[in-house]
């Protein structure tokens, strides 16, 4: 039976090769799927990986799709490094979009810059509040954060439904479950109109840069990771577990809340029942694909967005079924995780 043997030192070669292998495996499976469906694999690969990047519009759309994924993934990566298993970024994103909408609907068409800024700040606060609930329950009553953050996600989804069907329903919207469109002043502007990419993308990139500094160059970031990886050692060193819970969850909630605000105040311009298409869940995969590093998250959110958009194009151009997107995302993550094993282990046959 084969067995894994730890390497004395992590393999540099494998460290470089792992993502490449994972991508090649995923690409190979994509090609096989294309072939299985009777399509030309080369043409299929082109639709998936090249066509979305061919135009400025395409690039802008990738950036737009990346923004919520990246923001949520950054927060989640921090949580996981601190050993806090928050899987409720989706709920935190929704809470952010709710708070942002509340702000946008209540302020009049005033000074544009302040209004837009207030909306975004409200979103961040809403997300932080929602994550803070998880932190409070974990800190105060020791309630498992996986469970609480997940349950709160369901609650947030129903809250959105309640608001768009009830108190916030657009009076001029023929009773359909949407809010009125935000005033231009309360929206987040596009960077280069007419493309939809908005300033949220810049914020996400800046957050990634800050995230890198926070994790690898700050004392508090270091403390969080120590308390995450070696809680006992951390306790001896006087690092607090409570600090880890609160800081990581609040930062994650803030980032996810920002993502929610940028969705409603950006491309949507209103709160609808389907603000998020599971960004908070997909971001968990992004965080792991990015190996819990900020730069990795940037690249991983790019690849994930490419797969989503490529999946749409492969439906309309090649007539492939839509489920291909989910399959490929799963395969990519599985492939990277397995390949990563060989960074630290080698296989011995005996």
């Amino acid at each position, binding site marked *: 039976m084969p067995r894994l043997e730890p390497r004395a030192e992590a393999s540099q070669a494998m460290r470089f090769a792992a993502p490449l292998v994972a991508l090649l495996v995923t690409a190979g499976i994509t090609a096989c799927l294309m072939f299985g469906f009777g399509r030309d694999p080369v043409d299929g690969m082109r639709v998936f990986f090249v066509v979305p990047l061919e135009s400025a519009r395409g690039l802008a759309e990738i950036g737009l799709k990346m923004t919520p994924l990246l923001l949520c993934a950054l927060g989640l990566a921090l949580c996981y490094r601190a050993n806090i298993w928050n899987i409720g970024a989706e709920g935190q994103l929704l809470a952010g979009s709710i708070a942002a909408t509340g702000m946008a609907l209540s302020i009049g068409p005033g000074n544009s810059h302040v209004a837009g800024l207030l909306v975004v700040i409200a979103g961040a606060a809403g997300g932080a509040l929602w994550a803070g609930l998880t932190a409070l329950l974990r800190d105060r009553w020791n309630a498992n954060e996986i469970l609480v953050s997940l349950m709160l996600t369901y609650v947030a989804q129903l809250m959105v439904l309640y608001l768009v069907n009830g108190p916030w329903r657009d009076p001029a919207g023929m009773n359909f479950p949407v809010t009125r469109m935000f005033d231009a002043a309360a929206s987040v502007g596009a960077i280069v109109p007419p493309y939809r990419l908005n300033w949220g993308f810049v914020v996400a990139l800046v957050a990634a840069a800050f995230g890198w500094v926070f994790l690898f160059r700050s004392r508090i970031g270091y403390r969080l990771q120590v308390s995450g990886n070696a809680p006992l050692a951390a306790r001896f060193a006087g690092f607090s577990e409570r600090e880890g819970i609160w800081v990581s969850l609040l930062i994650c909630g803030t980032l996810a809340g920002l993502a929610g605000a940028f969705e409603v105040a950006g491309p949507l311009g209103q709160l609808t029942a389907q603000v998020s298409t599971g960004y908070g869940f997909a971001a968990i995969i992004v965080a792991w694909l990015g190996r819990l590093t900020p730069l990795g998250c940037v690249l991983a959110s790019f690849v994930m967005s490419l797969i989503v958009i490529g999946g749409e194009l492969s439906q309309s151009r090649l007539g492939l*079924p839509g489920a291909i997107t989910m399959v490929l995302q*799963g395969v990519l*993550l599985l492939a990277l995780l397995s390949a990563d094993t060989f960074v630290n282990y080698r296989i011995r046959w005996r």
Partner: protein
Amino acid sequence: MEQLAPLIAATLAAGTPLLLAAMGLLINERAGVLNLGAEGIMLMAAVAGFAGGYHSGSMLAGLAMAALVGAITALVFGVLAVGLATNQYATGLAVALGGAGLSAFFGLPYVGKSVPFNTTFEVPWLADLPFVGVAFFKLHPLVYFALLLTAATAWFLARTHAGLVLRAVGESPESAYAIGFPVRTIRLAAVAWGGACCGLAGAYLSLVYTPLWVEGMVAGRGWIALALTTFATWRPWRIVLGAYLFGSVTMVQFALQSEGVDIASQLLAMLPYLATIVVLALISRNPAFIRINMPASLGKTFHP
């Protein structure tokens, strides 16, 4: 009173898929392996079970097929997470995602098809009793099977040598390995068992509860089942309590709606989730209590 008996029956029927899946995941987790792929496994098994039942015309064949496919899907997770020591959280998520996508692929030919099974059962004689007959004895055999499974699981964990070994592997794989137990084999077996139980839960949905296949029909029940093991602090009978509690709150909120209670339905629908949080906070208040029951190596990779 007249409405209570059918409410109890409906609660038991609604709680059963959660109970079946959570009971398998419990074994999984007692061995120290957290499989977040439950939702994907249930979906794969639901479509496999439906296909099995559809082609063979036998519900038993469908259930067997579902358990088998559930175990195989779980083993994909197992080979990576146990064999290759990948991160359990991330691997489970990948399986959840991949399972949802693949089941949609395989399920396309079965959309809009129906299976000819009779899904109504009665326990002879007992079903005719007043009140309890309606409440407890007109349910599908899988409902009772889930309770038997609970009893068996409780007995296995508490009273058998194998159960002791399984728990040892979950508590301290290093020591278990040092004593000479094949830790990875045991963990793989536990993962396969968990997958088979999730498979039965998926098939309960696609063959018994609502005998049909549609994409995404498990609709989050895999996640709730995962939550239940924590909720129950890894004790079999508490899972029963949790599963039926969740089922009953769901049914009660529908019953309230049907009686025309003047609360927005979206707010009522939050009840099961809020109730779970509240109960969880109540039972978790004492950290020592959780720590005693939680398998110490849960979610951590092990390599010999």
